[in-house]
Every structure is written in C-alpha cells, then in structure tokens.
C-alpha cells in the first residue's frame, strides 16, 4: 500500500533543547499507528511537525506527497488533507457546534453553506451528537466536545487524522465514547497517528505501536508483540510502570 506519511531523519530543537533526535517513520495508507512514551519524550512535537504546526530543525517530512518541510509548498493546502484533534479540544468558542464544523469547508470554498450544513448534521449523527448542533462548546461535556472536534476535522474529508492524547483531558466515564468514535474511524480505513496513554485502545486498534523516549523511537512493533514481548529495556520499564 501507498505510504501516506514519510519522516526522514527528523531533528527538532526549541532554542537549545533538542526534542527530536533523528526520527524515521513511515505510515501506510489505512494504517493506525499509536505513539506511546513518557511525558516530555517529544510525542506531541513529532505529531505537530507532521502538519507543520512546528517548523523542523532538520530532516524531511512528506505527507500525502506534500513535502511539509519545504517552505515553498502551500502548507494550507496540505493541511486540508490532514485532520488534527487536540487534547484540549480547541472548539471555536464563539460558534455553535454546527458552525464549528461548517467554518473550514465554507471558508475554503470546498462546499456551499447548504452542503456544509448537511455534512455537519451527517457528521454529528455519526459521532452521536445530532441533538447538539446548535449548542455552544461551553454547553457540552468533555466527551461531547471531543466528538464534536473530531466531526469538525472530518468535515474537510481528510485522508489522514492526527490525534494528540484525545482522551487525556476527559473524565474516565467519557473516554469510552470518544474511543468508540475513533475505533469506527479506524474500521472505516482512515490513516491515523494517535498519541495516547490508552493502552487498551492501542492494543485493540493499532496496527503498530511506537514507543518513544527522549526524542527517539526506541522500539516499534504490532501491539501484540510490543505489549507482551518488548525487546528494549526502556520499553519494558515504561510498560511496567503503566500496565
């Protein structure tokens, strides 16, 4: 299958602090990759480099044939195809849920207002929020916010979805509903990169789990292998702490 994401020799520093130290990664179409690792290991930074929210220090990133690390490309065009879901939801506070979803497709002239509205209602149904179309973000629970944020990303009909700890800010009883939506997405064939602490999700859904530590990929393997039979000492130590 076609490679949707290619990362070659990626380095990223914040002034003096080197956060990513030579990352190499490839994600195939339809693949679900989960990234795990201790806090501060550079998981979010790696994810944010993939859609150009962070500029890289060195190396190359290609997503869907767009060379993200090339300053001459139209990064906005590339981003239309890469959905991103944040830990803190980041729903537009001044817009209703429906308008949140409609904003990008209408503003970027991908759809007319009418089409976008129809799409919004359809997506809200898909994430189980059809009755919240006219609610404002502050009227939703955390789980509902995150499902709305996922719907908002999907409205642009991206090929790739990036998730940065989508359930970490949620109360335990709301984690399931968000993971359920993500599972459905994975089953529908979406290419996904998910930074997560939900080992259950990684085990059930991921095709591959990547363990990052200290700015490097320490080990990657299918979940059955990585969780039951980790090869590296650091992976073992991390897993023993959280499992």
């Amino acid at each position, binding site marked *: 299958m076609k490679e949707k994401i290619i990362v070659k020799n990626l380095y990223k520093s914040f002034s003096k602090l080197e956060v990513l130290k030579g990352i190499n990664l490839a994600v195939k179409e339809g693949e679900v990759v989960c990234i795990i690792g201790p806090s501060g290991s550079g998981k979010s930074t790696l994810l944010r480099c993939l859609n150009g929210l962070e500029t890289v220090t060195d190396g190359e990133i290609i997503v869907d044939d767009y060379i993200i690390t090339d300053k001459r490309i139209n990064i906005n065009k590339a981003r239309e195809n890469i*959905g991103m879901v*944040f830990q803190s939801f*980041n729903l537009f*506070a*001044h817009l209703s849920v429906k308008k949140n979803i409609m*904003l*990008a497709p209408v503003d*970027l002239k991908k759809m007319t207002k009418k089409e976008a509205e129809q799409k919004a209602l359809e997506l809200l149904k898909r994430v189980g929020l059809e009755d919240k179309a006219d609610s*404002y973000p502050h009227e939703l629970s955390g789980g509902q916010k995150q499902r709305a944020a996922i719907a*908002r990303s999907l409205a642009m009909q991206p090929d790739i979805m990036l998730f940065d700890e989508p359930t970490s800010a949620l109360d335990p009883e709301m984690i399931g509903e968000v993971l359920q939506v993500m599972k459905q997405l994975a089953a529908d064939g979406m290419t996904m990169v998910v930074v997560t602490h939900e080992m259950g999700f990684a085990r059930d859904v991921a095709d591959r789990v990547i363990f990052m530590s200290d700015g490097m990929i320490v080990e990657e393997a299918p979940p059955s292998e990585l969780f039951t039979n980790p090869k590296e000492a650091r992976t073992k130590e991390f897993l023993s702490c959280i499992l």
Partner: protein
Amino acid sequence: MNFARTISEATPLLLQGLQVTVLISVISIAIGTLIGFFTCLLGLSKNIILKAIAGIYIWIIRGTPMLVQAFIVYFGFPQLIQISIDPDFTLSAFSAGMITLSLNAGAYLAEIFRGGISAVDIGQTEAARSLGLSSSRTMLKVVLPQAIKIAIPSMVNQFIITIKDTSILSVISLADIMNRARVYVGSTYQFFSTYTLVALYYLVIISVLMVISKYVEKKLKYEGKDNS
C-alpha cells in the same frame, strides 16, 4: 450661589458646548478605533519596519501628556506648514482637537486590541490553521470575533476617557462644554453652580454610554449561550 439662575442662564450656552463635546467625542472615537485597529495589526505583522512604526507611535502618545500633544498639533504643526509649504495655513481648534483625540485614543485602543487578541487561547489559532485556514482568515474568522468580545470592557473604558479628555481641549479654545462654562463663569463668577452643572452633564453622557455598553455586552454573552 444661585443654582436656579445658573441653570436658566447658562443652559443655552452649555448645551452649545455639549454638542461640540459629543460631536468631537463621537468622531474621535470612531477614527481612533480605526487607527487602533490598524496599528494593532501593524504591531502583529512580521515586518520589522511596520512593527516599529506601530511601536514608536504608541510609545510617543503614551509617553507625552495630551495637553502637550494638543499644543503641538494646534500651535506647532500649523507653524511648521506655514514656514515650509503654505504661509496661509490654519487649523481650527475643532480639527486640531479631533486629530489629537483620535491619535491619543488610537494608541491606547491599539494596546487594548492587542491585549484582546493575545487573550484568545493559542489553541483556537492552531485548530483553525490545522483545518487549512490561512493566518489572515484565522485572524478574521476565529481570533478577532473572540478578541473583540474580550476587549469590549476596556474599549468602553477608553471611550469614557476620550469623552472626558475633550475637556482638556478647552484650553486650545475648542468651544466644548468646559470652554463655554469658563466663559459663563468669567462674567458671573458662579463657580460652584456652573461647574457642578457641567459635571452633571458629563455624568449623563457617560452614563448613557455605560448603559449602551452593558446592553451590548449582555447581548454578546447571550449569543454564546442558550441557543440550543
């Protein structure tokens, strides 16, 4: 001290002045808001020269008294033009006052807008950019609507200051309410009753502004609520 006499005698004169005060306030607030908005955008641009222009303008206005600014605009600036370009050039007290007030309000409003914009969570921008919106569309559709809502109380505060600052311009012979009051007092010596009356007039205008702003604030609040 005779309040009844002052009220009946001074009212026509004071109302004339009040018109000037309201007119110059409204115009200056409108122009100042525009200046503030564009100065704020200049300040946010990546171009160092544009940024510097905004910074220097704000620095000069904040760093000098408005009375001095008014004197420079009213007395100094026409002299400069008379010497260099047109010997017959004059500037009315109203125009000079309007320029001074607008420049003054513009600088403070620029800072207020900047504060509003930086108070909008960076996550809002990141979400919009991730969807493919350009930085200018993100500013227009996501950041500004929220920033203005945040900035409204400070904006109203600045509007109130601008209205009150018109009284300073009475010394460059702007025929505002304060100037008219001084004329009346000059011939009648009714200091207490006249200036108290002037204070009441200011209180009324500013209270009207406050009521309007409370209404706007409330309306904006409701727009973000109870829509389901």
